[in-house]
């Protein structure tokens, strides 16, 4: 494929089709799900029609250039003065019209397909026992990362209403909240309800379906589906300010079994580093007053540092969910870190969290904590994560702690990631 | 050769600059602030200072223009036309009522300084208008030897400013007065007053339409009375204050947070008019 590219460069129009490269993770012409395939099946023939029309026009032009070209005008050398020909003109009104009508018909059909949803029932084990889940995820865009919220109780979704104000800032509590990576079961139609807490973003996983904007104040329906397990890349495509280019995400498609496993893990509270449980207990009971902290391990110290520095914005279920009172952000939220280490990327899907060999990529995480603005231009503290001026030791401790917020993702997933 | 035009404008410029300095100081500025345009140290009230200084600059520029381009310079003109002597200038023919306005303006300004900012602004505006008109009159009256030409000259400069100003002033007086009356009386009273005022205007016009030869003095007198009535009503309205508006549930909170903005909102329509 790669070799094909040079000749293609000579005729960029041809390269149009050939342009799909092996490493093009966002390639729109390499569908991996039902809907993206439908779109591809519609557009490929249209591309061909377009090529034909273009070559017709170009061909006619070149033909006339070859046939009728003169270098100088000679006195009296005048062609027949044709002022028009109605039959021709009717012809080239009608034929394009017919072509467009055909394209329009197929477009119409596909549009109604893409906008229809079907009710599915996927059995899911939750804490309350098995529920039948119609796969559905609420997607919330925010400068500059994505949040995914899972509600296994369909009634909760009824509470989403787009009447007044921006409801995305005040969503009902979800069973699972994650950031940057949308985890979904394969083979199922996964409905998305897309909204935003601040400006307009656009959610796009090219391999699985087209995009849909996340508009504040609106809940836009969309759906995706993946045929095979894997990691599918995405990118926010509506201009959303400073770090629009660094607002990415991935869809992680798992087999139903793996998905169940993931759900089970996510439903649990975060694990507290061994030896720190007592401190945490005391801290929560003390309601803000000083409690002597454990100093033994990095993770223990990290927990303390986290509680002091980070908990005002980041929620870790089971640790600070009692004291967390919303982020100091315009949008009112920061990524939920409860099972942070179970993702393979961080910071809006732009940094790998693991090395290819499966170890934690401390480098990335540390540099993020050292100065997020250097990695992702932002407008902190109102928008984006601020530089908190942490000491190197604290950063080390925090990384130790964050690593405990597992479980670790599977090796295949780690191998599939590699975003930078 | 310094022409009268130059002298008039330059005089005004000096006066305005001086006034701006004084104003900059007395309104609470410190040290050399007003001298350095606020660069080294403060100026009291920026708005007034700015207007005065700006006026000075404009007058100065006009004066400089006149002298450098030898506009309205009778001698230069005479020279240009190859004549030996310039024709004599002409004394002003009309009595000028601008000194009166200027005096009124000055008084209002002083009173305004003490009493209310609005009055102060009104005073400043009056002074400015008087100064400008007066200066132009004075200049135009002596620009050439021909009174007709002088009048034409004056009109050329002044009409583009006078006409819109007068237009605005006319609307402004009525709008402000009428709305103050409406605000002072009860809601139903406002309806009534509106009906009465509009009917008076309308039927007065109808009457005049049918009886065009009513004595001029009578008409003028009645019109004057009407105007005084409206104005008086307005002043009464201001004095009486607005009636109690019945606030919505959260009215209080809203009106507080919305204070500045709503004013600006209204300011908008005013600007549009300007």
């Amino acid at each position, binding site marked *: 494929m790669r070799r094909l590219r040079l000749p293609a460069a000579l005729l960029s129009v041809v390269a149009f089709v050939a342009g799909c490269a092996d490493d093009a993770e966002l390639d729109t012409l390499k569908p991996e799900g039902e809907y993206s395939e439908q779109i591809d099946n519609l557009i490929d023939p249209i591309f061909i029609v377009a090529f034909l029309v273009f070559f017709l026009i170009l061909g006619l032009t070149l033909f006339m250039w070859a046939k009728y070209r003169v270098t100088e005008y000679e006195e009296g*050398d005048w062609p027949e003065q044709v002022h028009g020909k109605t039959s021709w003109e009717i012809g080239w009104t009608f034929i394009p019209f017919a072509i467009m009508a055909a394209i329009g018909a197929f477009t119409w059909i596909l549009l109604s397909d893409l906008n229809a949803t079907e009710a599915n029932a996927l059995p899911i084990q939750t804490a309350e026992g098995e529920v039948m889940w119609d796969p559905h995820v609420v997607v919330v865009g925010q400068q500059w990362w994505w949040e995914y919220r899972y509600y296994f109780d369909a009634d909760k979704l009824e509470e989403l209403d787009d009447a007044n104000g921006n409801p995305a800032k005040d969503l009902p509590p979800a069973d699972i909240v994650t950031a940057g990576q949308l985890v979904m079961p394969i083979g199922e139609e996964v409905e998305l309800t897309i909204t935003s807490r601040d400006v307009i973003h656009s959610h796009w996983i090219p391999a699985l379906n087209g995009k849909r904007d996340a508009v504040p104040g609106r809940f*836009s329906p969309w759906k995706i589906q993946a045929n095979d397990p894997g990691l599918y890349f995405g990118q926010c*495509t509506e*201009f959303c300010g400073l770090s629009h280019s660094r607002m990415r995400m991935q869809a992680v498609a798992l087999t139903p079994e793996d998905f169940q496993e993931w759900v089970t893990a996510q439903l649990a509270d975060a694990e507290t580093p061994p030896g720190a449980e007592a401190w945490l207990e005391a801290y929560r009971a003390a309601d803000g007053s000083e409690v002597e902290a454990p100093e033994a391990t990095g993770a223990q110290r990290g927990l303390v540092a986290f509680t002091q520095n980070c908990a005002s914005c980041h929620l870790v279920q089971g640790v600070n969910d009692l004291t967390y009172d919303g982020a100091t952000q315009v949008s009112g939220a920061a990524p939920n870190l409860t099972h942070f280490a179970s993702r393979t990327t961080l910071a809006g899907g732009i940094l790998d969290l693991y090395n290819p060999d499966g170890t934690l990529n401390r480098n990335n995480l540390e540099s993020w904590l050292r100065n997020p603005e250097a990695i992702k*231009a932002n407008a902190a503290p109102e928008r984006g994560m601020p530089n908190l001026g942490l000491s190197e030791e604290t950063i080390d401790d925090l990384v130790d702690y964050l690593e405990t917020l597992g479980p670790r993702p599977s090796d295949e997933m780690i191998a599939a990631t590699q975003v930078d | 050769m310094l022409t009268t035009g130059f002298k008039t404008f330059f005089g005004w410029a000096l006066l305005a600059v001086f006034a701006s300095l004084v104003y900059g100081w007395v309104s609470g500025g410190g040290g050399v602030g007003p001298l350095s345009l606020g660069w080294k140290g403060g100026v009291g009230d920026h708005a007034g200072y700015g207007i005065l200084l700006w006026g000075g600059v404009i007058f100065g520029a006009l004066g400089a223009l006149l002298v450098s381009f030898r506009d309205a310079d009778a001698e230069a003109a005479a020279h240009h036309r190859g004549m030996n002597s310039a024709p004599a200038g002409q004394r002003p023919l009309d009595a000028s009522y601008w000194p009166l306005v200027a005096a009124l303006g000055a008084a209002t300004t002083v009173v305004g300084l003490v009493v209310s900012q609005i009055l102060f602004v009104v005073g400043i505006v009056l002074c400015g208008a008087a100064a400008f008109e007066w200066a132009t009159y004075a200049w135009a009256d002596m620009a050439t030897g021909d009174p007709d030409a002088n009048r034409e000259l004056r009109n*050329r400069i002044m009409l*583009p400013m006078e006409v819109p100003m007068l237009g605005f002033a006319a609307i402004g007086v009525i709008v402000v007065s009428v709305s103050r009356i409406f605000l002072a009386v009860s809601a139903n009273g406002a309806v009534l007053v509106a009906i009465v005022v509009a009917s008076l205007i309308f039927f007065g016009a109808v009457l005049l339409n049918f009886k065009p030869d009513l004595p001029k003095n009578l008409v003028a007198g009645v019109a004057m009375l009407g105007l005084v009535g409206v104005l008086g009503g307005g002043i009464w309205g201001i004095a009486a204050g607005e009636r109690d508006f019945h606030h919505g549930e959260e009215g209080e909170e809203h009106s507080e947070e919305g204070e500045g903005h709503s004013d600006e909102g209204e300011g908008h329509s005013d600007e549009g008019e300007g």
Partner: protein
Amino acid sequence: MAITEEPPLELEAGDPLPEYAEQPLGVLTRPSGNTGIASWLFTVDHKRIGIMYGVFAMFFFLIGGLEALAIRIQLAVPGNDFLSAETYNQVFTTHGVTMIFLVIMPLAAAFANYLIPLQIGARDVAFPRMNALSLWVWFFGGLFLCSSVIIGGWWENAPDGGWFNYAPNHGVAFSPSKGIDFYAIGLQITGIGSLVSAVNLIVTCLNMRAKGMTLFRMPVLTWMLLITQFLLLFAVPVITVALFFLMFDRLYDANFFNPDAGSDPLLWQHLFWIFGHPEVYILILPSFGIISEVIPVFSRKPIFGYKVMVFSGIAIGFMGWGVWAHHMFVSGLGPISVTAFSMSTMLIAVPTGVKIFNWLATMLGGRLKFNTAMLFAVGVVSMFTIGGLSGVTHAVAPADTQQTDTYYIVAHFHYVIFGGALLGIFAGFYFWWPKAFGYKLNERWGKWNFWLQIVGFNLTFGPMHILGLQGMSRRIDTYSEGFGFELWNLVASVGAFVIFLGVLIFVINIFVSQRQAKHLPPVGPDPWDARGLEWMTASPTPEHNFDEEIEVQQVDEFWFRKYDIDDDGTVHRIATGDEVAQPGTATGVHLPAPSYWPMVLAAGLPFIGYGLIYNLWLCVLGGLLVAAGSFGWVFEPADDPDAHHGGHDDHGDHDDDPDTDPEAAAALDAPEGADDVAIESEEAPVG
């Protein structure tokens, strides 16, 4: 300000005045004369105004082009840090805004101003002073917009929301710099210019036509420009509303686009695109008109299907109003709206296709002379088609969900705008240059210009199709390795520099040709053996356009005065262009006098703009300028009274030939001719 407009000195009776004494004294008199910079600044001559539109637009083109180059440098390689994210966002926004509002639109306006009166045989536009007003309002508005780059720091305060500037990202909370205030107010100002000129040109087209010039004898270019003006007339107020809402939101905390108060951010998108889509046809139709003039001349055939050309233009103008939501396919509109707008968008391909095929049919069987103007025109036919076809692929809404906001869109609109509008405008430059300046542009340089531009253009924007389909988002300040974007971005960046070279050669060509022309015989009124009325007068066009009114009997009137067609279809020459064309030597034609007021009025607007952003007192100053400007205008006689006294030489560029041409003078004395001229010119000054 006409402070001392001829204050007559009281002279003793009987004194004879020397000639020069009639000249008013002092510079503050009403502007007069036709030399020097002042003659440009205060002119109300539609030709000078047209030329100034062109020159200013080229200046902005340089700015917009440099911004484009900055974009391309930044994107040439992955992870580049030539521009910070902050700067990049401002650069692409100003690039888009500059190119659309300050380059293509005014370039079209340049042709509209210069050519409409000439093509319909008029002496000037309906309201010459209003015409000057629109120029200056637009230009000052443009400067105001561009000043945002400098004011408050280099690239600190420029608009950064993208050219369509979606809500609520354009709010103060998300864009705290003053940039978007500049955007809102700047576009508002330029909008006033467009609106005024639309009104003016519409009245001109409808009401100033020469005798016999019925609507369906107007040249296709005039028709397309007329349609464009109607689009402007109705589209500008829509964005005016949107911009007011935005301005009030930003400056006075209104709630039009504030989702936290339950407002709908899509309101902005609707309003913007209701304006925005007609706007893209505003960009392209003038170019369609231009090549409809060029292709027949260099094919030696009349335009194929004149009426169909006109009607398809009208159809495009109409349909352009019903498709705006194709820019919102993924915004969550609801399936019914999406389907409806998808269908309506596809339909536009039909009238546009008709045009393409008619141009081809015009060339079919003709005698094609591929000089530079023709090359550019044919370039439009093929390059625009590429852009149009990719447009059709966006119109397929499901496919657009994959394409929108990727470089595939960037490719589409650069193909239609650069490959359609801009190439067409270059064709126009080469074609009408001799009419405006009296010399032809050099063909050798011209061909270099064309080929570099077309090659560079395809090199730049062709690969963007691939990039887009490979998933590269637009408006990203940088991209990572590993997505397959590296190669094509580099190619595109190289291409951009080739374009730059191409345009540079155009600029060089102007100077080269001007020097060469000194050694060449004058081009004469009709250098191309052309067809329209504009060629029926001397080159460069004399200030009064035509010596006498032309009576029109058919489309391509000028051509039919030169040629006759036999019954068997052969063409015979009956006269040469030089014989038919008017010498352009008439003197004493009474023309509208220049005026300061349009400039004074226009100058007030940026002050109001700065005032709204920085300090309301500036608004007072601006408001005074506007008020004084407009009322000064009202009280200024449209005609310069001096002209009646014969003191002024108002009649065009015959300074070198002060002696009145006896024939022309005689023509003036002749009752009918003189009356026509007088009435014509009486009418013009009304503006």
